[in-house]
């Protein structure tokens, strides 16, 4: 496989957090690479730095050292505007606690990334298409009939499926999922994993963080993180 097949490459990622006077080194030179269309699971014990690594991959956080390259471009060399566009267009996040906006309906939450990228005029011109895609995504995750509901009217599994639909709204090249089943019962969690598998089969690149080996086994490749490094 050629090097160009890697959509995401992280090399020598270091991250240290300062907690009061103590310093906690979470990542100590972690390396990771994911190919297009791959489903990668990062596993590790609680506190091993897997979520931190995922945030760095998604440009929600910056590494102290090391580099992250997305399609060959170094995130560390991108400006604020480019990083915003990266988060908006290139990656989609799925969080453990769903993180939906309570003030918006399910459909509005799903189309939120499109609203952010479109601007006022762009949204007015293209809202029909965006809503159509939002509804398609909701249909895909089995929530079309809940489009006008508010997030607090949904169950945990439904919220997570809404979050997945939102993450897919701008057709990102990379889906980053942080413990997507961590807050759900096993049956509901299984449904979410099936959804992710289905997306992956359709060509979606996914990097998922989990502490659960059984969940990780659903991915195509497992990366274990321990002592701040990939084993």
């Amino acid at each position, binding site marked *: 496989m050629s090097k160009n097949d890697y959509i995401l490459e992280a090399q020598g990622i270091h991250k240290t957090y300062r907690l009061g006077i103590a310093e906690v080194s979470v990542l100590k030179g972690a390396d990771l690479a994911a190919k297009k269309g791959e489903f990668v699971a990062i596993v590790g014990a609680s506190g091993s730095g897997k979520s931190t690594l995922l945030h760095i991959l998604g440009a929600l956080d910056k590494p102290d050292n090391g580099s992250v390259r997305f399609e060959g471009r170094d995130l560390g060399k991108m400006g604020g505007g480019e990083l915003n566009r990266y988060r908006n267009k290139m990656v989609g996040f799925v969080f453990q606690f769903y993180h939906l*906006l309570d003030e918006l309906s399910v459909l509005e939450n799903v189309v939120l990334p499109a609203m952010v990228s479109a601007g006022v005029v762009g949204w007015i011109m293209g809202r029909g298409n965006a809503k159509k895609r939002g509804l398609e995504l909701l249909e895909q995750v089995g929530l079309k009939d809940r489009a006008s509901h508010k997030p607090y009217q949904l169950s945990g599994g439904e919220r997570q499926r809404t979050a997945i639909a939102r993450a897919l709204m701008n057709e990102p090249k990379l889906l980053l999922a942080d413990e997507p089943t961590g807050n759900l019962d096993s049956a509901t969690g299984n449904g979410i994993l099936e959804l992710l598998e289905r997306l992956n089969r359709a060509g979606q690149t996914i990097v998922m963080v989990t502490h659960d080996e059984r969940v990780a086994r659903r991915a195509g490749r497992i990366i274990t993180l321990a002592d701040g490094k990939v084993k």
Partner: protein
Amino acid sequence: MYKLILAIRYLYRRRVSYFALIAVALCVFIVVVVMTVMSGLVGEFREKNHSFTGDCVVGTESLVGFTYYEDFLRKLESTDCVEAASAVIKSYALVGKVGSQRNMGVEIIGIDAATYGRATGFGGTLHYHKDDVSRAFKPTAVVRQAHHLDANLPGFVVGVDMWIWRDEKGEYYFAPNPEATAVTITCFPLTARGALAKAGTDLVNTKTFYFSDTSHSGIARVDGSVIYAPFEDAQALCGMKEPIARASWIHIKFKPMVGIDKGCGKVRKLWGTFYEQNKDKPNGELLAQVKVQGWKEHRREFIAAMEKEQVMLTVMFGLVGLTTIFIVFVVFYMIVSHKTKDIGILKSVGASGCDVVELFLGFAAGLGVIGSAVGIAFGLWFLRDINAIEDWLFERFGFQLWDRTIYAIGEIPHRADLTMMLVVAGCAVLACVAGAALPSVRAAKERPVETLQVSQI
């Protein structure tokens, strides 16, 4: 677009926003009501002073007056900008009812009722001769016949507050016809040099006048201390008729399309030439102290006090506005503290720090617009019924907010000025935006990773 949607949703879904909205609405309400009443009062007072003075005055504060006023009057009347001009005598006098030992000090203004009525708003201030100001000093035929008045005696017009009883509601009680009352007016005649014109027991000039009308100018100081008498009688009483006739002031009204400043400029120029031509004539030195003033300048000492009060109130309500800014600041600080997760979510889907600032500033501006609209609507409703509310307070609790005997204005001013309301609303919106600025910047600086994953490393 999401910023607008979220701002609107935050506005009606966060109860704490309602408190900020109420604070803004109350502040706008108070400012609109107070500014309307105060600017109405000042505006009305200005208007009444304008009406009392005319557009421009030429004259002197000196009780001696100035000479050759008739020549200057003729010059004025021949200019294209002057519609009417009237000479006036102004001095002080003692007035007492005939047969009574009591008297009081008053300001006496000698006027030619017809010309003075054209140069000023005097005619509109009269009660019995509103329709024919030229007969202001003539008792009506009915009265004259009923009381067998001497047809040769002149009438006088008296400030309404000196003559007519007024109840707490500000209503005057007029008799159907002027009562047949005679007064004596006593003046100290002065020479052109300012000395007493007479000596010994015959020191003063006294003349009897019949009451013919009242004048309600709406200026408390005028209505409570001024008596108008026919020009020639007042001139004679003040010793200004001979050897060279003098007057105190000339009141001028400009033609409709002539601006006050432009008209005054022309009169000033005219006076300059007139002065040069007449200063060397007998008693021409009196012309040196003559000033040409616009009505505002002439009534400055009276209007300025009220204008200062208005400025002071504006400053005080500016401080109220600061309180509003602080309330909005506190509310937004709380909202931002509660909305850190939302900020993290927005940033995770690509929103920038500027977008977050715009969201919260838009929220603040929306709050300011709605708060202002509510405040203005409530203020307009209150102003519409302000006099009825004041009447009700007086009838129900005996509490009189608006003492008519002090303000000399029949009702509380309540006509709101659209420009003023827009300025107040604009200031309220700006205050909200200013109050929300710091919390918004704080929100923009939130790191998404901290707000989304605080418990996980």
